[in-house]
């Protein structure tokens, strides 16, 4: 449920960017979310719809680009995507460790409606 706090922040950031660019209405917000970032897409959209009411972002569609968690095996040097369960390297069977890939959580871009402005 910590999506409550971050959805508020997404609305604020998107509005700041849109205002800066001329005050256009936002139609789409593209987010990058790593699988280890602990955030749930549907929950963000739900809170976003509440917080964005009456702002430039009202009605905007959120598009989530999910980034799988990349692990690195120190034993054999293999990079691999985290399996659904556990951290085992598919190459040698030893356990790998997380990398920075999979922890992302940022706004990539906005689509704004510039018709009539």
């Amino acid at each position: 449920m910590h999506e409550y706090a971050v959805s508020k922040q997404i609305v604020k950031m998107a509005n700041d960017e849109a205002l800066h660019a001329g005050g256009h209405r936002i139609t789409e917000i593209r987010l990058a979310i790593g699988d280890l970032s602990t955030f749930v897409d549907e929950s963000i959209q739900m809170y976003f719809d509440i917080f964005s009411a009456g702002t430039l972002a009202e009605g905007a569609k959120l598009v989530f680009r999910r980034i799988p968690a990349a692990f690195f095996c120190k034993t054999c040097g293999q990079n691999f995507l985290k399996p659904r369960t556990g951290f085992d390297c598919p190459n040698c069977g030893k356990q790998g460790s997380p990398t920075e890939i999979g922890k992302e959580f940022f706004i990539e871009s906005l689509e704004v409606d510039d018709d009539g402005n």
Partner: protein
Amino acid sequence: MEIRVMKGIMDANGEIAAQNRANFAARNITVVNVLASPGAGKTTLITAICNHLKGKRKVYVVEGDIASTIDADRLDAMGVAVMQINTGGGCHLDANMLREAVSVLQPEEGSLILIENVGNLVCPAAFDLGDTLRLLVASVPEGHDKPYKYVSMFGYADAVVLSKIDLLPYIDFDMQSFEAGVHALVPDAPIFKLSCKTGDGLAAFLDWI
């Protein structure tokens, strides 16, 4: 029209956390963020640390709970300087809450601040507070599979305490699996196995901290 943004959603929290960290470092204050599920034994462990450091180092406790002052009252009764934050439903503490708590506590130079985060193995891992050390407390009854299920939280820890080891004879707890999971996620984090009830392993942990 597309507007390119490429800005982190946690950056606002991260900036406050960085200020907190710099302020603590400048005044030689150590800040330990204690993370665990509800009932793992955070408050009991914090109580043990406070007792151990009594008369040696000034300790402050920041208590994060959704509601109530039960934990803060317990520490207050021991004479510990404690500040309760009730998040009113919020599932984590954030950097701004810590900044405000510290502005009230006014910790002295060289002191130790223990933060008891909201009992939760998910959300607190997303909010950097500006702490010096993240101490994850996992208890034996929770089971050995927790590192495999709460990857972000275990991956966020600098040190791990396995509490309630006096219950090991009664629970099917696979120690090797637990340790392997922790080592995979945080290879440098020490694991302290202890029981606050019997005192087993407690001295080694208290000496370390």
